């Protein structure tokens, strides 16, 4: 078996043994409460320079409140996994939090292109599938996985290798495992220990959490452990992977959480307009820096009435909450 071709780009090097040691030495294995505020969770578990993976499906069930807290705390030099993400990447770049992006798919406008041209942010090209697959590898505890795509294209060149399959002798691509420093996952329900339930089709909340060193869960609702134990099949992320449980109703705002509330279209248009008009600072001031929490932001800038409308507009409950 030989390496037939390989990418020469920059990627986070896999090191499963170092990852294991981190897990051994830092994870809480006992049943202890991890409930804390978004401010405390981000302060304790997101460090400058961290690789941050987050799970969302464009505007669906993303950890938007945690993202804003990262902006609020002015985290710097983050490297993010931009798989199937909408305005989050733009916001983090506009706020100066991010200088490296692994790209699957993200909404790109002038904020990111200008930052790229100015050399403030570097992009590394993969695909959605390659990024979710790299996180799958990370969540399996192995340094790489074979896959049957990427080959032959320009996205091969970042960090894929083409090797001779030791069994068939045919060429096959392999990608490096990704074990982010931090995972941010927004869930429907979670107990105080971190046993988390996620309803609906999802990008990859489970692999994102399991592959990471530090895991912050934000949740629409905290349920009792007794409730969790009554339906163990619903638990998608086990408590021992979780470092912080942050109770944030409307934590996916301005996006949607299926079954609970619709996305706030006016907000999305406001953020789009802010980018086009070069007014991202004003946008961030209003939605992030002028408030101290998601709760205060909702109270000040959205209002209970509008939140009630967003809830009422989400008419589909089937499969989620009934």
């Amino acid at each position: 078996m030989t390496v037939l071709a390989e990418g020469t780009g920059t990627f986070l090097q896999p090191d499963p043994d170092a990852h294991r040691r981190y897990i051994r030495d830092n994870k809480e294995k006992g049943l202890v409460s991890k409930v804390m505020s978004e401010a405390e969770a981000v302060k304790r578990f997101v460090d400058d320079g961290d690789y941050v993976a987050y799970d969302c499906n464009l505007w669906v069930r993303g950890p938007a409140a945690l993202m804003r807290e990262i902006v609020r705390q002015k985290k710097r030099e983050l490297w993010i996994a931009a798989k199937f993400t909408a305005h989050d990447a733009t916001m983090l770049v506009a706020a100066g939090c991010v200088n490296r992006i692994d790209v699957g798919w993200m909404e790109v406008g002038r904020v990111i292109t200008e930052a790229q041209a100015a050399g403030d942010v570097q992009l590394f090209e993969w695909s959605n599938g390659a990024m979710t697959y790299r996180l799958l590898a990370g969540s399996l505890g192995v340094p790489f996985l074979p896959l049957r795509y990427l080959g032959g294209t320009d996205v091969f060149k970042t960090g894929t290798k083409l090797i001779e399959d030791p069994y068939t002798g045919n060429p096959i691509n392999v990608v490096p495992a990704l074990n982010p420093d931090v995972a941010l996952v927004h869930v429907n329900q979670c107990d105080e220990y971190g046993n988390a339930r996620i309803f609906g089709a999802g990008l990859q909340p489970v692999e994102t959490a399991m592959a990471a060193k530090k895991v912050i869960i934000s949740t629409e609702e905290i349920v009792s452990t007794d409730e969790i134990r009554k339906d163990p099949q619903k638990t998608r992320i086990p408590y021992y992977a979780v470092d912080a449980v942050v109770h944030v109703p409307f934590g996916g705002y301005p996006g949607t959480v299926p079954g609970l509330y619709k996305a706030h279209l006016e907000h999305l248009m406001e953020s789009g307009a802010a980018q086009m008009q070069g007014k991202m600072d004003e946008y961030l001031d209003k939605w992030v820096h002028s408030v101290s929490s998601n709760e205060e932001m909702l109270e000040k800038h959205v209002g209970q009435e509008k939140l009630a409308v967003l809830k009422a507009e989400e008419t589909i409950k089937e499969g989620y909450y009934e």
Partner: protein
Amino acid sequence: MTETRTFTDMEQIICTSARLMHADKLYFTAIGGPPLVAVLLAKTLHAPNLAYVVEDGTIAPQVQLPAPMFLIEASGGSYRAASWTDMNTVGFHAGLGYLDYGILAAVQVDEYGNFNSTFVGPAYERPERRFGGPGGANEIASLCWRTILMTRQQGRKFVKKLDFMSSPGFLDGSAGARERAGLPADTGPWRVVTEMAVFDFDEESHRIRLMGLAPWATVDDVVAEMEFEPLVASTLENIEVPGEEELAVLRAQVDPSGRTVRGRWITVELDGESARLVEQEAPAEGA
């Protein structure tokens, strides 16, 4: 007995693509945009049981129509699915050979069906226009048996050399090129659909070949909107313009917000199988 019909370039692309779909095959579509709209049109018009999977792990949903105005990928897009899984899972199913057709949109296509959805411009670091990235297109175009690409007929879209190859067609076109790059055997682009034309690929050379033509367009019209000369089939199929029922369903049911079907307007005068171009808008900047 002539009749005048007006539709957008994208409506033609969507209708032509939808007609290629059948309920006994499985489709893998991007989460929104023209590919999903084409699938929904086919389901509504002639293949109600047609099943498709979406990148977010939704398997065989039954989207309520009229479609929600925005965010088809939210609960509306997953409604009454056979199964809710995740991105890796549907990728595995494609890898196993379950997904017959991938339906994708492309920003640039070359003569071997390779395509770009990352950026256009002279240099990666300073793109003229940057797009979201391949998204799921690389895996869909690699793993599905056949790929249907949807794009507008414009010279800047059919290019000799891609600014960036996000997703594979037949690569350099040589025999076994995909297999040598580690991709599954017997796969590749199958059709490229534009508002004027349908292309397939020559079995030997893997070069793109014009095989269908809108009744209001000529081969020269098509070739004028390409940077390279395609092969041309000896007999060209006639592409019907969007029918009244197709347009009604598309506009009222599948894309009532008009976000996806919008494009440059084309007006033709129909006379039986033939059609005469009455008027067409110029392509919009960046469309």
